[in-house]
């Protein structure tokens, strides 16, 4: 059997087959290969980034643990919950230490400090009775307290000596409003 290949036709068919294979099979595979290469690059970058991030997180946590005392102070200054009872107790105690009488404490509603923070502030109106040096001591003790207490407004009046009363008042009512912060 003499099988002769028709070379011109075979060449033409080969050309068509090669073109079809190149454009419809090999080229898509090449594109898929390129796409995967890019994807692997991204994934590797993500892996490296995440790895570095968690290494950083772990070292940051270890470093934070070295400052536990400072962190406790921050927790005290800015507690997770506004507890009125210890705060009122603190104010009465500071009043006693400063030599000023805390006559009344009223707590107004707490509100958020800002839009992008979850810190809340609560205002307290305090009615005091005492002398100026005692007030200064009381305010200074609030300013220096581990809890962040903001002295907002305060006012006091003294009745001047008159023809009926020659004595100067050494103690007088003082109204003070403060702010405290919590989460």
């Amino acid at each position, binding site marked *: 059997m003499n099988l002769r290949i*028709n*070379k*011109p*036709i*075979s*060449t033409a068919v*080969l050309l068509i*087959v*090669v073109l079809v*294979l*190149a454009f419809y*099979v*090999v080229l898509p*595979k*090449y594109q*898929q*290969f390129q796409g*995967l290469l890019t*994807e*692997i690059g991204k*994934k*590797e970058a*993500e*892996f490296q980034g*995440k790895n570095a991030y*968690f290494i950083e*997180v*772990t070292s*940051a*946590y270890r470093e*934070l643990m070295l400052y536990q005392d400072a*962190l406790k102070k*921050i*927790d005290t*200054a*800015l507690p997770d919950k506004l507890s009125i009872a210890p705060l009122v107790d603190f104010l009465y105690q500071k009043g006693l230490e400063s030599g000023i009488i805390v006559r009344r404490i009223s707590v107004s509603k707490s509100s958020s400090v800002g839009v992008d*923070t979850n*810190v809340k502030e609560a205002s307290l109106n305090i009615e005091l009775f005492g*002398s*100026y*040096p005692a007030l*200064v001591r009381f305010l*200074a003790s609030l*300013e220096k307290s581990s809890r*962040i207490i*903001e*002295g*907002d*407004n*305060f*006012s*006091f*009046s*003294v*009745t*001047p*000596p008159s023809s009926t009363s020659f004595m*100067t*008042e050494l103690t007088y009512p003082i109204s003070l409003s403060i702010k405290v*912060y919590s989460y």
Partner: protein
Amino acid sequence: MDLSILYQLKNKKVWWLDTVFYFFIALLLATIFCFLIFYFKISLQEKTMKDLDEKIASIGTAQQKELEKQVAVYQRKIDNFATLLTNHKIPTNVLRLFEEITLPNVWFNTFSLSSQAASIQLAGEAESTTALTRQVSIFDGSVFIKEIIGLSSETAETGRIKFSLTLAINPDIFFQATPEVLPGGIIDTTSPSTSAAFNNYIF
């Protein structure tokens, strides 16, 4: 499609036809080889991708995520604390300033400080008009007092000068470690916090 040229070529012996034919066979083989290479490489890459996905998923362990959460909480707390501390006002600075700049012959009987509005409402008495004028000029010269608003005065039955005024204060005073003492010229001032001042009816 005109295929007559192919039939003409079939009958003729053209020297380059074999070369072209074998070239296309080689090209076909090369194309198949390329396909196989890409197929193999793709399967390898897919495996690499799978491995990477598994590695990425394994990075954040429960313990690491817990640490991350704790660090984030502390970071937020530290940031908030720093902001609050930066804005923490020290109102006693204002009282210290008044102790420094109040003349011994001027007394205040009403004092109302608003740290939010940075203003102080004052009412008091001065020994004389000269004392009041001098006190007002001292207020005017203080770097911590921006403006004197609504000054009113009248002579009291005792002969002293009653006055009231509002001071717009420079908010910087709330953040100073120690308030700046007024420069020179008030050598004879007595702090109202001294016993002499308290025996009078200032504060």
